[in-house]
């Protein structure tokens, strides 16, 4: 009979069962590691060289030269860092406040709730580059609706995206328009997991709407609020689409909308200074890691 075959089959299926954890997750982990670790290692390697314009040409190790160049660049790098932080903090704090307000408005059932939810979902799924083009037209100084709107009320128009002083706030506004719904949806999902009893109890004790939200509901939702905060700030920190689509590769003629993301892109693909760009990317990567870690630590401490 075929007993060796049966024995082999049994052995194989035993092996599969023993190792199923890695058989099932291995391919995905290998895929991610391959596309994550190798490029990061390559970037780290290039960041210590003077690679530029063509990678085929020979390049040399320059030690920490690129890092010194980047970290002492007060003309473009540090302003880009400042703008990135300003953009993130500004846009995300407005998004958190408005998002919480919208979530509270949508909390209790009402007629037409479905329609409102569908509408706030639209900016979220609309293609960011197309959204950027739309706002480009609305904020166009001569033909845009924004200035027409202001003129209707007798107010002077603005240069919006074109002027160095208003470009960044205008971009923050676009980010707020597109991503406030995300915060609202997350907080709304969080609100549904919060039991109503503690709030009822507080109401019985005479707490007003604001007190009930601040002292009862909010603490219960702490983990959702932190999740939304982490998600949005990490995403805002790496914003690329709307910045590139409205202001181009350099962030405008005076680099007025240049964030670290746009700066890294420009150094690499416009200036072809690969070594230097790699150093920027390493610094940027570390910044994002620090941001995430800080928020997770803050969250742990809060709990």
């Amino acid at each position, binding site marked *: 009979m075929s007993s060796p075959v049966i024995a082999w089959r049994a052995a194989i299926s035993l092996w599969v069962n023993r190792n199923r954890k890695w058989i099932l997750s291995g391919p*995905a982990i290998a895929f991610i590691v391959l*596309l994550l670790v190798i490029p990061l290692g390559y970037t780290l390697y290039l960041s210590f060289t003077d690679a530029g314009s063509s990678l085929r040409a020979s390049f040399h190790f320059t030690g920490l030269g690129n890092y010194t160049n980047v970290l002492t660049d007060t003309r473009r790098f540090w302003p880009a860092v400042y703008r990135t932080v300003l953009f993130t903090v500004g846009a995300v704090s407005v998004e958190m406040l408005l998002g919480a307000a919208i979530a509270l408005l949508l909390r209790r059932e009402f007629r037409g709730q479905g329609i409102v939810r569908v509408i706030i979902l639209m900016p979220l799924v609309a293609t960011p580059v197309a959204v950027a083009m739309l706002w480009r037209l609305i904020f166009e100084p001569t033909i845009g609706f924004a200035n027409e709107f202001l003129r209707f009320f007798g107010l002077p128009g603005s240069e919006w995206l074109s002027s160095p002083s208003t470009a960044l706030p205008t971009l923050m506004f676009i980010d707020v328009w597109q991503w406030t719904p995300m915060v609202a949806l997350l907080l709304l999902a969080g609100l549904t997991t919060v039991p109503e009893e503690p709030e009822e109890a507080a109401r019985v004790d005479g707490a007003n709407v604001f007190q009930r939200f601040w002292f009862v509901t909010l603490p219960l939702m702490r983990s959702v609020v932190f999740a939304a905060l982490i998600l949005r700030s990490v995403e805002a920190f790496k914003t690329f689409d709307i910045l590139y689509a409205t202001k181009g590769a350099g962030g405008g003629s005076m680099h007025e909308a240049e964030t670290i993301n746009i700066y890294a892109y420009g150094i690499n693909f416009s200036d072809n200074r690969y070594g230097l760009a790699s150093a920027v990317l390493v610094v940027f990567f570390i910044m994002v890691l620090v941001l995430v870690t800080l928020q997770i630590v803050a969250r742990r401490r809060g709990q």
Partner: protein
Amino acid sequence: MTRRARAATLRASRRRGMRPSRAYNVFRVIALASVVVVFIFPLVWLVLASLKTQIDIYDPSKTFIFSPTLHNFKTVFGAQAFLPFFRNSLIVGVVSTALSLVFAVPAAYAMSRFSMTKSSIMVLLARVIPSISLIVPWYFLFAKIGMVGGYGAMIISHMFLSVPLMVWILISFFDTLPIELEEAAQVDGLTPIGAFVRVSLPLSIPGIATAGILAFIFSWNNFLFSLILSGSNTKTLPVAIFNFIGYASIDWGGLMAASVSITVPIIAIAMFFQRYVVSGLTAGATKG
């Protein structure tokens, strides 16, 4: 008023159906109406502009009242020949989503069942890392093996976006599936992997749909990867839209018509699968 008395009044008022005050209701209707206007107006504006001629776009007196024309859409699909870019977006989106599911579904299952914390943290890392710090080295590495400009490099890069997204969504989905069903199937003679394929997999179709739809939306909307990795024949829609922006002038009507054409399909998909999209976007946030 004592606590008990107050509770009694509250109960009574609720019975009468007067729970929120009248002033609050008025405030709420106004607030909700402004929310709706703020989020929908720009999109309405986009559609209006796409139906205007370049001259009407420049004319403030024709802000809302103008004679609509499909001229811009003719430019998009005729002169600008946008259909191939639709095909590219579709190919990259569908193929990367399908392949990602093959990787992500079993992985998420294993990570959920065996509580693989370290692996799931690494998946999270792949989600928080700035795309630009990967796409730059990818560009060089893909260029070395001659993949830049082809579909392969774009599909792989989009998969890098969707695999972690899917794993993240599906872990929280599998966490809610009772393990007892699989155990029962194993008692009936199925192997553990057989129990996963025959019992848990059919039950997880809603989760898989959520992950798939969201991954497709993210792929359709992705700009940076295609900007760097695509060739002139493999451009996806978000990159092709720049065809309407010349050095000297912008074809606003065409640009808006192209934006409408790109956005309408993805909004339609999201509306149709609204429940899945919302549950996917909020997956993992409410637990922890």
